[in-house]
């Protein structure tokens, strides 16, 4: 057994080599999909910026569908699987319960992701990420997503099995670390949500294959969002676990109160999975009473959890920096913080962007009265690019700068570029998100190839302010894409050619 472990020279942790191999393959695959999704994003934004209007309509809608799948499913979920193996096996000094199951999950996810990608590129699945029926994709599209979800569920089950093994074999003392606890909250949410997704994509796929009749379109919308929004809550929980990890890794922060932070994770596991009906606020078929119960009472208990993390993550960073002697005035600790450490600057962009841009706008657009103004406008992608990209994706990028030396055992290449990368990406994505929401407030639709309405029977102009807003969105996207490309190049180069860290 001992041969299956290596001792990490930096942390003293015993790293299970089969777990390390799984973390590596999932992390590498996730970054490949990030690269694909990023290139697609470039073509999309230069189509929506009407001064360039790059793609023809069919390719625009096709690439938009694939962009959602590549980013929201592949990039984020592969990385989350790596986080699950890291927070269970590595942090607990344990062996991974069943590496073969990890590989089985990986193969299922990869076959599924490729199947869906091929279905989209073949041109008969231009249904957007939401695939609202009666829009019909190729049966392969749905089958791919089901396989992907099943693979990810196997990874979650393996995470819990590893927790059990670690406890049984007494590889750690006392309670699991806070980061592992947060990852457990993410895994609990993930199992319920992904099972839900796998279950409702099956009848939809069978309908597409002509076996059974179509389900009710409104029932589909309800089922889709019970899955589609809830999967984003996996990202939230995993992202916050990463925030605590980054705060510790970058400035040595300790949670100000274990009880406080862990209670907040429990609130997530209990309540965050509901609240999906804010996508349906102006739909027929569901009563206002039900929508309001769903989007206010239950939602706000989950928001309370986010508010608690919004206190404790910055607080633990401040306390740690003040302990280092930066105690002058209110903000010396912030001024003297390690801004040159890409993981630290990423953490700050991620925390502030998720909270102020993503979180607050999410609460706003989730009310009946404001939703009628923002539903299906560019406000919505503006909101979720703040949560999923600035929040989750940046947190994962920040963690990657530590995964490279600790797991891949390579020194991060191009350190100067790495220092600058978060600023390109962060400033770029903040610009994209704010500009999209600004343009959306004029009623500009999302998922629309031509807002000049040139081929339509009636003319309407959104005005020059919107043209300017779209140009600013494109400018922000270019900055973000430079940052994203820097990240991918640094990560891939380090994995392939980085200097080996001494054992």
């Amino acid at each position, binding site marked *: 057994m001992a041969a299956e472990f290596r001792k990490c020279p930096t942390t003293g942790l015993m790293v299970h080599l089969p777990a390390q191999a799984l973390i590596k393959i999932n992390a590498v695959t996730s970054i490949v999909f990030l690269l694909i999704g990023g290139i697609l994003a470039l073509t999309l934004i230069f189509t929506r910026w009407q001064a360039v209007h790059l793609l023809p309509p069919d390719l625009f809608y096709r690439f938009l569908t694939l962009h959602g799948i590549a980013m929201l499913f592949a990039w984020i979920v592969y990385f989350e699987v790596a986080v699950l193996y890291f927070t269970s096996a590595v942090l607990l000094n344990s062996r991974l319960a069943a590496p073969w199951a990890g590989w089985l999950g990986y193969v299922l996810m990869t076959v599924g992701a490729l199947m869906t990608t091929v279905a989209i590129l073949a041109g008969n699945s231009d249904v957007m990420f939401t695939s609202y029926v009666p829009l019909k994709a190729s049966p392969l599209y749905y089958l791919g997503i089901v396989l992907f979800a099943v693979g990810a569920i196997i990874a979650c089950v393996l995470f819990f099995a590893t927790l059990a093994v670690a406890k049984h074999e007494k590889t750690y003392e*006392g*309670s699991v670390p806070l980061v592992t606890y947060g990852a457990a909250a993410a895994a609990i949410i993930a199992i319920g949500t992904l099972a839900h997704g796998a279950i409702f994509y099956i009848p939809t796929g069978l309908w597409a294959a002509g076996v059974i009749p179509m389900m009710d379109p409104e029932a589909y919308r309800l089922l889709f969002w019970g899955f589609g929004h809830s999967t984003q809550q996996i990202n939230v929980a995993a992202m916050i676990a990463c925030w605590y990890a980054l705060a510790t890794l970058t400035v040595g922060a*300790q*949670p100000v109160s274990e009880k406080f932070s862990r209670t907040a994770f429990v609130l997530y596991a209990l309540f965050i999975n509901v609240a999906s009906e804010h996508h349906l606020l*102006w739909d*027929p*078929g569901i009563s206002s009473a039900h929508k309001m119960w769903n989007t206010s009472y239950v939602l706000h208990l989950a928001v309370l959890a986010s508010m*608690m993390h919004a206190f404790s993550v910055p607080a633990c960073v401040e306390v740690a920096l003040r302990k280092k002697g930066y105690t002058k005035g209110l903000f010396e600790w912030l001024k003297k913080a390690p801004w040159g450490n890409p993981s630290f600057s990423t953490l700050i962009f991620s925390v502030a962007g998720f909270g102020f841009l993503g979180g607050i706008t999410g609460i706003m657009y989730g009310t*009946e009265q404001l939703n009628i103004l923002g539903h299906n406008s560019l406000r919505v992608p503006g909101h979720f690019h703040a949560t999923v990209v600035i929040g989750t994706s940046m947190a994962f990028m920040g963690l990657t700068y530590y995964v490279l030396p600790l797991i891949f055992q390579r020194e991060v290449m191009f350190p100067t570029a790495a220092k600058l990368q978060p600023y390109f990406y962060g400033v770029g994505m903040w610009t994209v998100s704010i500009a999209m929401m600004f343009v959306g407030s004029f009623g500009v639709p999302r998922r629309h190839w031509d807002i000049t309405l040139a081929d339509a029977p*009636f003319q309407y102009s959104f005005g020059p302010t919107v043209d300017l807003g779209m140009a600013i969105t494109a400018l922000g996207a270019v900055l973000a894409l430079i940052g994203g490309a820097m990240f991918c190049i640094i990560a891939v180069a380090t994995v392939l050619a980085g200097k080996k860290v001494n054992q």
Partner: protein
Amino acid sequence: MSLGSPEKYWWDEPLDKDEKTWVTVAIVWAIFLTLYMPYKHFTGKQNPSQEYTKVSGDKFDAAVDKFIAQYKVGEEKGLAVVAPPPNSDIFIRGQQFKWDPILKLKKGVQYKLHLSSIDMNHGFSVQPVNFTIQVVPGYDNVLNITPTTSGVFTIICNEYCGLGHHTMVGRMYVD
């Protein structure tokens, strides 16, 4: 530290004053938000009418055709222009890739607007007043509306409905 096991009996450690204050403020705010949406639902002027029914595409199609035949006053770009009387039931049909018919409404008069689709989901987005109603096939989304401004309005589809989605643009007039 977050990456290692916490000290024993972490659950017995009391919360600091700062944390208690913060949580109290957050809970009060959450309660306020929870009550404010229902409050606005009853007192606000822009809320769903809660009168949806299930309707088949064929039935809705027939109802719209009947409505057009009854109140048609002209034609524009191949679409019927319809001027219904005040307080009547009015219809707009969403289909790939048009909104039909073109309504001519009166300012300050209430109508019962029936929205449905005979194929895909569509988004009924009215500009420049800027509001959006979801249109779902199989459902008649009923709204009691009173136009408050006069002028020419554009209906843009903002729910992706197929490759011609961006050409799905309609008209509405309010005198």
